[in-house]
């Protein structure tokens, strides 16, 4: 399946590619960085060159910065300062026409500040940037607060919105469909689905801490690249991450659909079902 090429809606015959700004929203520790990091790595593997923006100043051990020096970091720690930085980056994006993956972290963030203080969605559309908003949630009601608040208090539900349930947040002892069923009973989720939001279940990954401790990309970890000062990784850990990267995450990306992802010139990644 080819990756999405979204054209300017004003003139569908004009083949002008709209850059995608993809942002994950949710409270702290719901898996936003894990999702964005894996997405950034897979997008690069598939020939995409999105800019990686990091305004998650609270998270120092598990961060998009582990992807390398190409990651752009906000020069301010405050939401207002970061919002200003973000505005600048978005303006540059209009010129460069690159896609961007943004990690805003949890809590009240620069993105919330932009949503509150400026008509962001309308502005982005006007600027020719396609905003993809991923709401990461688990089973706790608090996980859904952001979705509810932004929807109800700020009327924020961009056209390309996806509700992504992180399987890793689901309690042990309850199977995934059963847990998802319960989440789907939530009114904020139903409202989003009612208004056309997409949906996906992000696959759980084991051994995340070991990768975070090593400050490595997922692919480097799976490829057994050594990290100075760190012990050799376990073969089982590597196999698990490898299978997650080659089978589970690609399957999830297919479910989500190319319209909700940065451009991947080589197409969506193959789902490797065997021998991983």
């Amino acid at each position: 399946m080819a990756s999405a090429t979204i054209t300017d809606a004003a003139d569908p015959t004009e083949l002008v590619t709209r850059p995608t700004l993809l942002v994950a929203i949710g409270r702290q520790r719901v898996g936003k960085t894990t999702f964005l990091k894996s997405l950034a790595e897979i997008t690069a593997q598939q020939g995409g060159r999105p800019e990686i923006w990091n305004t998650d100043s609270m998270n120092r051990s598990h961060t998009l910065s582990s992807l390398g020096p190409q990651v752009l970091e906000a020069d301010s720690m405050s939401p207002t300062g970061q919002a200003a930085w973000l505005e600048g980056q978005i303006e540059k994006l209009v010129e460069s026409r690159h896609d961007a993956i943004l990690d805003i972290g949890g809590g009240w963030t620069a993105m919330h500040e932009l949503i509150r203080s400026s008509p962001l969605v309308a502005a982005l559309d006007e600027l020719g940037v396609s905003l993809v908003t991923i709401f990461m949630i688990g089973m706790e009601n608090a996980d859904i607060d952001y979705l509810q608040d932004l929807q109800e208090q700020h009327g924020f539900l961009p056209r390309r919105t996806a509700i992504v349930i992180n399987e890793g947040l689901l309690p042990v002892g309850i199977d995934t469909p059963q847990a998802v069923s319960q989440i789907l009973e939530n009114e904020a989720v139903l409202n989003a689905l009612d208004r056309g939001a997409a949906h996906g279940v992000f696959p759980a990954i084991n051994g995340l801490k070991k990768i975070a401790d090593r400050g490595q990309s997922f692919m480097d970890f799976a490829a057994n690249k050594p990290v100075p000062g760190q012990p050799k990784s376990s073969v089982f850990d590597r196999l698990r991450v490898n299978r997650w990267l080659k089978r589970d995450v690609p399957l999830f990306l297919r479910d989500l659909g190319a319209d909700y992802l940065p451009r991947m010139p080589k197409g969506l990644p193959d789902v490797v079902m065997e021998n991983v």
Partner: protein
Amino acid sequence: MTGRFGKERLKSLIENHRARDSATPLYRWLLTNCEDISALRSKGDSWAPYVAAAREDGLDLPDEKEAMRRMERYWRRMAGTRRMHPEAEQVPQSPDTESAMQPSRFPRGWRPAVVDDGRVSCAPDGTGVPAQIVPAEENAQVASLPATVPVCSDSETTGEKNFPIGRARAEAIKRDLLARLKRKEPGFHRE
């Protein structure tokens, strides 16, 4: 111990109630009998006798455990709906809910793509054509299943608080995930 409901009594109850178009037979059965169930059943009691009663009334239910789980879920949902919309108890019967094209997939007020007052009903995926309903079995392709129900671009929400489109999509998602679990597909069951 649960008493027998009595077919005549149930019939008259059914006639006096209208079940929501998109409601499943089990949901409508619970709705029809909710007063009796409320009177007979205490919180925490087993649903087994009520499952037996529903079966006796000709409902085709899955195995006991799943049927009880489903009944409990519908019961909780119904209680929530009644709290918010007391008028929701009065909903029309739909004799066609077991057909291949599950009505639960459609929002209330769904119409085929016929021009009506100059307007064409919009499919939930926003394509402007009626949504094609593919039975889950036919749609079962490992690794390429669309768990994502296509987005309703510029979606026309009904504005109703019970989110008929959202509920229909949620039901479709649940069915899809269960089908995947059954097929032991990766990524949807923790190992």
